[in-house]
C-alpha cells in the first residue's frame, strides 16, 4: 500500500518537474504574452494563430530582430474563459514583465483582457476577435486590433447585397447566427448598413440557435418554409461546417442565395467539407489563401504549409499581422519600454500584409485603433489547389478599406460612452 503510494507521489513530482523548465534570461528582448484557446471548438483558431505568430517571429529574428531587440513570445491557453485569461494577463504583466499582451479569439475574453491592459497601461494587440465594441464603446488607448471587425465585414456585405439587387433582384432576407453577442451584432450591423445604403428589403425571419448547436434540422426546415431570397448567416468555426452539411441534405442552397460575409469563407470550412462543399455560396473571411494573388500572400501560405503541414485559417494571418505591427512600432520607437511612444507609433502605422492586394497597404486608424483593410467577397467554385479542399472562393468582388469604416455620427455616438 505505502509502496504504491510512493510510486504515485513520485509520478506526480516528475510530472510537475517536467514543466518547470527554467526560463532563459536574455537581455534585450521584446516580450509578448499571448493568450489563445488551444482546446475545444475554437482550438484550431488558437493553434493556427500560435503557428503564424512563431513564423513571423522567426522571420524577424532571423533578420537580426528589431532595433537591437529580439522578439520573444510566451503562450498560454486562455481556455476561452474570461476570468482565467484575466489572471494570465496579470501574470504576464507582473511576473513575465511583458511589453505587449497579444491574441484572444473570443470577444468576451478580449473585453476582459482589454480592461487589464487599460489598468496596467500595457499595450494589448488584438488579433482575432471581431466584436466592434472593442474599438468603439470599450475603446481604450492601449488597445489595438489588427484584423477587421464585424462592422467592416458587414459593411462590405451590405455593399455586395446592394450591387446584387441590380443583377439579381432580391427582396427578402432571413438571418441565422449564434445566440451571443457576435451573432446579434452581425444582424444589427447588416441591417444598419443596408438602411444606410438605401437598400429596400424585408427581414422576414431571424433564427438564433445556441452556440455549438449540434442539430440545425428544425431551423433548416423553417428557413426553407420562409422562402427568403437571401439567407444571411453569422456562424463561425465548426457551427458553419455543421450547418452547411445539414442544410445541403435538404437542398437549401438551390432554393436561396447563401450569404456569409464575416467568417463563412474561412479555409476551415473548405477543408472540412472537402468534396461535399456546395458551389455558389457567397462567402468572405478576414484572410483568403487564394486572394490576393500576390507574391507576398503566396509566400505566406506556402511557408505556413511548410511549417505546419496544413493551410492556414484566417485566424493565422491576424496573429502574423500582430507580430509585424509590434516589430514595426518597436523599430520606430527604438525600444519596447516607452508605451506612450509605442502608442504614437502604432497610431496610423502602415503595414504591408499578405492580405493586401497590389497598391494597398493596411493601416491602423489612429482614432479607433482599428486596422483598416480591404475586404474580398467571393463565390465558392471548384479549385483543388489547396487540398484537402475541393472548392475555394473565386469571382471576387473587392471593397475598398476606407469605405468600410463606421460613419462619423456612429463613431461619435458609440465612442462617447
Amino acid at each position, binding site marked *: 500500500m505505502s509502496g504504491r*503510494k510512493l510510486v*504515485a*507521489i513520485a*509520478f*506526480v513530482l516528475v*510530472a*510537475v518537474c517536467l*514543466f*518547470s*523548465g527554467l526560463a532563459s534570461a536574455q537581455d534585450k528582448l521584446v516580450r509578448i504574452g499571448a493568450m489563445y484557446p*488551444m*482546446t475545444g471548438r475554437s482550438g484550431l483558431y488558437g493553434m493556427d494563430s500560435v503557428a503564424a505568430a512563431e513564423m513571423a517571429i522567426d522571420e524577424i529574428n532571423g533578420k537580426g530582430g528589431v532595433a537591437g531587440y529580439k522578439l520573444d513570445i510566451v*503562450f*498560454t*491557453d486562455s*481556455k476561452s*474563459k*474570461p*476570468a*482565467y485569461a*484575466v*489572471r*494570465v494577463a*496579470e*501574470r504576464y*504583466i*507582473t*511576473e513575465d514583465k511583458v511589453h505587449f499582451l497579444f491574441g484572444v479569439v473570443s*470577444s*468576451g475574453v478580449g*473585453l*476582459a483582457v*482589454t*480592461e*487589464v491592459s*487599460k*489598468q496596467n497601461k500595457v499595450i494589448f494587440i488584438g488579433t482575432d476577435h471581431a*466584436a466592434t*465594441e472593442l474599438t468603439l464603446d*470599450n475603446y481604450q488607448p492601449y488597445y489595438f486590433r489588427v484584423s477587421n471587425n464585424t462592422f467592416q465585414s458587414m459593411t462590405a456585405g451590405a455593399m455586395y447585397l446592394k450591387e446584387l439587387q441590380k443583377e439579381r433582384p432580391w427582396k427578402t432576407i432571413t438571418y441565422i447566427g449564434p*445566440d*451571443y*453577442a457576435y451573432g*446579434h451584432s452581425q444582424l444589427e450591423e447588416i441591417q444598419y448598413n443596408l438602411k444606410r445604403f438605401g437598400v429596400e428589403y424585408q427581414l422576414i425571419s431571424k433564427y438564433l440557435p445556441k452556440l455549438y448547436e449540434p442539430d440545425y434540422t428544425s431551423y433548416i426546415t423553417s428557413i426553407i418554409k420562409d422562402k427568403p431570397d437571401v439567407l444571411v448567416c453569422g456562424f463561425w468555426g465548426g457551427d458553419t461546417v455543421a450547418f452547411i452539411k445539414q442544410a445541403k441534405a435538404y437542398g437549401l442552397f438551390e432554393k436561396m442565395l447563401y450569404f456569409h460575409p464575416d467568417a463563412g469563407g474561412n479555409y476551415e470550412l473548405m477543408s472540412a467539407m472537402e468534396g461535399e462543399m456546395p458551389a455558389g455560396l457567397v462567402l468572405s473571411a478576414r484572410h483568403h489563401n487564394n486572394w490576393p494573388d500576390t507574391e507576398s500572400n503566396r509566400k505566406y501560405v506556402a511557408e505556413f504549409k511548410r511549417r505546419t503541414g496544413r493551410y492556414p485559417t484566417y485566424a493565422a494571418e491576424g496573429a502574423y499581422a500582430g507580430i509585424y505591427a509590434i516589430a514595426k512600432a518597436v523599430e520606430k520607437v527604438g525600444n519596447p519600454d516607452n508605451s506612450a511612444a509605442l502608442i504614437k507609433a502604432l497610431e496610423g502605422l502602415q503595414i504591408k500584409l499578405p492580405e493586401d492586394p497590389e497598391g494597398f497597404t493596411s493601416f491602423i486608424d489612429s482614432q479607433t485603433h482599428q486596422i483598416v483593410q480591404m475586404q474580398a467577397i467571393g463565390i465558392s467554385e471548384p479549385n483543388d489547389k489547396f487540398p484537402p479542399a475541393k472548392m475555394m472562393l473565386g469571382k471576387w468582388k473587392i471593397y475598398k478599406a476606407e469605405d468600410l469604416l463606421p460613419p462619423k455620427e456612429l463613431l461619435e455616438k458609440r465612442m462617447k460612452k
Partner: protein
Amino acid sequence: MASSSKYKFGLLWSVGFVAFALVPVLMTSRYQMNLASHILIWGLFAVAFNMLWGVTGMLSFGQALYFGIGAYSIGLFVNHAGKAWYLPAIPIGLVAAAMLSFLLGLLVIRVSGVYFTMLTLAFAQLAWQVTFKWYDFTGGDDGIQGIIAPGILANKMVYYYFVLVVVFISVWFLKRLAYSPFGLILRCVQQNPNRVRFIGRSVKMNQLRIYVISSVFAALAGSLMVGVDNSIHTDMLFWTTSGEVILMSVLGGINQFFGPFVGAVILILLEDIIGAKTEFWPIFLGTIVLIFVILFPKGVVGEIQHLRHRLKIAGESGGRHETHASA
C-alpha cells in the same frame, strides 16, 4: 486536553493568517498577491459550499447562482446607478442572495438526494441563461468591465488586506457555526434525519437555514471577486463554477472543515502552474486530480488527519516518541 487542542488550533489559525498577510510583503511580483486573492475568495466559497455538502449532506450543484448574484449586484449597480453604489451594492447583494435562497430553498429542500442536486442545477442554469441573454441590462455574454472599487480600496494591496480580513472573519464564523449545537444538528441531519425529528428538531428548517447561510457567503465571495478582476461575466453563474467548488471540496476532503480551503489552494495553484507550462493542461490536470482522488479518498486534509491519527496510535502502542505526530 481540550485546552491544548484549542491552543494548537489557535496557533494554526494565526500561522495561516500571518502566511497570507505576508504575501504582499514577501512577493516577488504583484501576481502572487493576485493569485493569493483568488485562493482566499475561492477558499471562502468552497468552505461555505461544504457547509451544505460535507456537513449537512446536501449536494447543491447550483451555488454559482449566489456567487454570481454577489458579483452582478455590484456590477449592475455600478453600471446603471453609478460608481458610488459599489460598497452599498455588497450588502444589497447579500440580502438579495438571502431572500432568493430563502424562496428557492423552500422549493428545493422539499426533495433530497439527486433530485435536490438537479433542482439547484436547474435554477442556477436558469439564472445564467437570463444573464447571458439580457444584453441591455446585464451586458449579456460580454459581461461588465471596468468595475473599480472606490477610494483606497482601488489600491490592490489595500484591497488584498480587505479580502484577507473579510475571508478570515467569514471562515472563522463558519467554523464556529460548524462546531456549534446548530452544526451538530446539521451533521445529524446528514447521518440520521429521523433522530433529528425524535429530539424535536425540524430537518427541513435546519436545511433551509444552512442553505441560506451558505448562499449568503457564496454571494460574499462573488462580491469580493469583483475588486480583484475588475470585470464580471456570465461564466460566474455557469454550472462549471458550481462544479469547481465541488472539485475543491473533494480534493481537500469534505469531512474536514478546512478541506475545501486546502482544495482551493491545490486546484488554483495546479491550474496556474500547469496552464502556464503546457497547452495539454487538461491531460495533466486530469491525471493529477485522478491520482489525488484515488490515493486520498478522504481528501488531502482528511488523509493527513488519518495519518496523524495512525501515527499517534502507533506511537502510543510502540512506545515511540510522540513528536512524529506533529507532521
